[in-house]
């Protein structure tokens, strides 16, 4: 039960963090345009932070959300009325592949970060590994969700999507 709550909070936090990254990007790019045209000045670190740090953060976090909610596009050319064992086997295969990809992203993402941990990005002067910081977390979430799917264990966090989609809804 505690593990389920932990992953529910982790998923919620990562989704909200990805939303914050998106909103922050929006704010700094719009502000930069306004500053450039009205004050002949700009935010020097805008491009690096938005494309290198924020973009990778929400790309990989959204990849994990996509796995959790089964959003990623697949091609469905098998007949609708395939025997159940075929559909079950294909679902298990999908989860197996996702588990492996999750592991690769998590483990090799950590190795990537450790490999450049001493480097400093040019503008602004921040550690270069920040660009890749969300990859292991996304990999971990993909690994966990896919493993649960592979083992057929209910995670009990299905209402996460419902909760976030209902924010601000008129009663």
């Amino acid at each position, binding site marked *: 039960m505690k593990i389920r709550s932990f992953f529910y909070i982790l998923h919620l936090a990562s989704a909200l963090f990805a939303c914050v990254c998106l909103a922050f990007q929006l704010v700094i790019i*719009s502000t*930069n345009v306004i500053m450039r045209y009205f004050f002949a000045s700009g935010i020097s670190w805008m491009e690096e932070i938005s494309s290198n740090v924020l*973009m990778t953060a*929400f*790309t990989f976090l959204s990849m994990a959300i996509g796995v959790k*909610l089964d959003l990623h596009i697949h091609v469905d050319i098998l007949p609708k009325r395939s025997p159940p064992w075929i559909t079950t086997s294909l679902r298990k295969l999908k989860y197996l592949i996702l588990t492996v990809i999750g592991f690769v992203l998590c483990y090799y993402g950590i190795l990537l970060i450790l490999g450049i941990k001493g480097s400093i990005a040019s503008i602004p002067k921040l550690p270069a590994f920040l660009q890749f910081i969300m990859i292991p977390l996304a990999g971990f979430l993909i690994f966990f969700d896919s493993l649960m799917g592979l083992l057929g264990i209910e995670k009990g966090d299905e209402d996460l999507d419902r909760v976030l989609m209902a924010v601000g809804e008129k009663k």
Partner: protein
Amino acid sequence: MIVDSLGITLLLSIFAVLVLLRVPITFCLATSAIVTGIYLNLPLEAIVKVMADGVMNFSLLAIPFFIIMGEIMNEGGIAQKIVNLANLFVGRLPGGLALVNVLDSMFFGGISGSAVADVSSLGSIVIPMMKKQGYDPEFSVGLTICSACQGIIIPPSHNMIIYAFAVGTASQLAGGQLLVVSVGKLFLGGYIPGILMGVMMLIISLVIAIRKKYPRGKGYSFREGLFIFLDGLLALCTALIVVGGVIIGIFTATEAAAFAVLYAFIITFFVYREAPLARFVKILYASLKTLAIVMSLIAAASAYGYLLSRLQVPRLATEWLLSITNNYYLLLLLVNFMLLGLGCIMDMAPLILICTPILFPVLVLKMGMDPIHFGIMLLLNLSIGLCTPPVGSALFVGSAVGKIPIERAAKGCLPFYISMFLTLMLVTYIPAITLTLPNLLMPGR
């Protein structure tokens, strides 16, 4: 040059087999890249880094912003205002609602740039109205689905940004220098083909409406008309900001998209006031769900593209295609049929990312086709795939919104497939349809 046949076979066959086994395309690309990377003794950190580097591109930032803009517009009840505006222009003609359906897709597509968003938001308003007035459900749903595909071609469209990104990658993969396609020119290139497709659908709808004696819509007083016009115009200004800003050179595509989001935010939450401000969290989250599909694909396709290049697949594909025919016009026909076929079984974004690195070197670098012309032809081909069975996403959404089976929805699309195919052929073989506006308004850029 030594060709690593086993490496190429691994890369291509793992991808193809996994796609057939219903594995999501993003992970088919990533898995085949990882397995081939292991075979080529590449460190897997390098593959992960290539995936991340693939999305670290400032011009790609326009994609999330276009998606957020579409979500804001959906939330703010823009669809109804667009329907009213289209009704004002063509509602009084025979089969008025059918014509409204085409015209509102033209307007809405210019704002959201997404065929699926167009079908779901406009379809849920127009299809019930059409059914109520006695239009065939198949015709209503088929028209909604096919007309929505104009949204891909009429700018702004995030698929054009994906194409511009793919061209940069493709030119580097082909061993040449980085080729940058102007997003402004791409936007301009989409107008005439999009409008041409719309006009053809208007003509077909009008003919069907007259034959089946579909009713005319009601008229408006001057006061009502003026109100509807101004109300709808505010929403249409979003597209004007993006396209106008980029063409005039005030903004880059990314900045224009960010600014358009700001504009859409202000008119939705402070002018129209159709949604509470707290809804913006939902908008960001819903955008993130769409981005999960698009951005993950770009990341995985970057790793796949890196290996395609390392194994010299674009060069081999060029040689293979030219061995079939080196006649430019036949090659165009061959590519069109290939893309139409692929569009029937796969979605748009992955196909742009997979096909551009392979076809771009042949048609643009070797045969001298204009990259803007190639881009619009590619997008037009793939947009047709969105409304064809078995996996057309617009077709699925349309049949769900119209509450009829896929087979009946596809039957309703049949007359409009003809207009789409005709537009495709005209765009393919008459480059001026695509290139006149970009060359006129952005010469030399």
